[in-house]
């Protein structure tokens, strides 16, 4: 039964996972600034007239402050002396940008670093997309179908997003030449259009501020974002976290497959320098962009496998 603190019922995308939490563990999900219930975006933020990097810093400030709250007010245990235990952060899709931002902005910020050192043992990046996290262009097709049509009010945003996220994206020539496989051209394979998901999605979807929800990056200029993200991953790899897990679904959007591949390359480059093995990758067989909806137990098994 829910405890209605404010006499309201909250529906959360993580709810299926929280309800299936393993014994002896604690699960917490939060709603970022701009989503209903949390501090709303300012008119400038909602209108995307603030610099993208400034909004990213704001989100990271919220994230750091929330971890501080979780530690000091909710009193979750810190990491053990060997770096294990404590908090595992699980970032999904655009939420992976919050992990990148945490480590990017922690550089030169002792309080951020201290918080990481005290609490975060593992970071799981689940379905990280190349456009929203790595700052790459999603390509003409996706731009025309999705990003180019975000001006409010979006045209059927839920269905538009479903089309985009489930495959209206072409992998880069570099990816195809190194990884092989065929170009993906169809968008209805990744679960977003399944009737069961559409029903649940109708309860949890937020499209009102979709444009601004995507308008935060490490750098303001598009051409600077990819390298900034690379720097963030270098910082992540060389931080005190013990484990970095990369998770994607075998039936997920190709953009997230490629994002996970880029992250793996970057992190393994750092591992080669330090000799410390931190990265574990997992392709979830049959999984799509919404593994927590379709297979909460399997998702938990995977999260435990990817963290310490």
């Amino acid at each position: 039964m829910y405890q209605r603190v404010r006499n309201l019922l909250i529906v959360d995308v993580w709810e299926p996972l929280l309800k299936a939490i393993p014994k002896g563990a604690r699960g917490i999900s939060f709603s970022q600034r701009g989503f209903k219930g949390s501090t709303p975006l300012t008119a400038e933020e909602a209108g995307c007239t603030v610099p993208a990097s400034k909004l990213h810093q704001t989100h990271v400030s919220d994230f750091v402050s929330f971890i501080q709250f979780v530690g000091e007010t909710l009193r979750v245990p810190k990491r053990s002396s060997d770096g294990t235990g404590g908090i595992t952060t699980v970032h999904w899709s655009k939420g992976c940008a919050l992990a990148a931002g945490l480590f990017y902005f922690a550089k030169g910020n002792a309080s951020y670093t201290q918080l990481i050192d005290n609490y975060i043992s593992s970071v799981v990046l689940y379905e990280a997309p190349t456009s929203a996290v790595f700052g790459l262009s999603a390509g003409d097709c996706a731009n025309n179908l999705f990003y180019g049509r975000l001006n409010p009010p979006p045209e059927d945003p839920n269905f538009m997003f479903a089309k985009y996220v489930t495959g209206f994206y072409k992998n880069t020539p570099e990816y195809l030449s190194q990884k092989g496989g065929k170009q993906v051209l169809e968008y209805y394979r990744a679960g977003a259009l399944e009737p069961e998901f559409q029903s649940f999605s109708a309860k949890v979807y937020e499209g009102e501020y979709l444009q601004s929800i995507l308008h935060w990056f490490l750098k303001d200029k598009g051409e600077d974002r990819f390298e900034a993200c690379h720097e963030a991953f270098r910082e992540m790899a060389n931080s005190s976290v013990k484990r970095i897990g990369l998770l994607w679904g075998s039936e997920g959007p190709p953009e997230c497959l490629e994002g996970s591949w880029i992250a793996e390359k970057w992190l393994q480059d750092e591992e080669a320098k330090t000799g410390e093995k931190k990265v574990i990758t997992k392709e979830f067989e049959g999984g799509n962009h919404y593994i927590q909806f379709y297979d909460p137990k399997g998702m938990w098994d995977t999260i435990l496998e990817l963290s310490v």
Partner: protein
Amino acid sequence: MLRVRSVDGSARRSVEKRRPSAIKSSPHKSLFSVTAVLQDMAIKDDVAKLSNGAEITYLDTGAPEGVTNYRTFLFIHGAAHNKCIRESETC
């Protein structure tokens, strides 16, 4: 029936006929059967007043009973699908 077109425009197919095969054959229970089994799970719904001045809503399963040095999993949502607040229990 919802119909979609492939990017190259070559074919129209029904969504129902193109369910991901791996999902269809998944040995795990569906979302809905899982939530039905675990519907009595207590999840706290609250608002955090943060040191930077922000107010952030969160869900919390709470500390496990009888365990002091437990692990915590903190979930960060994506851009387009996250929780909303509904003003009735029929949400």
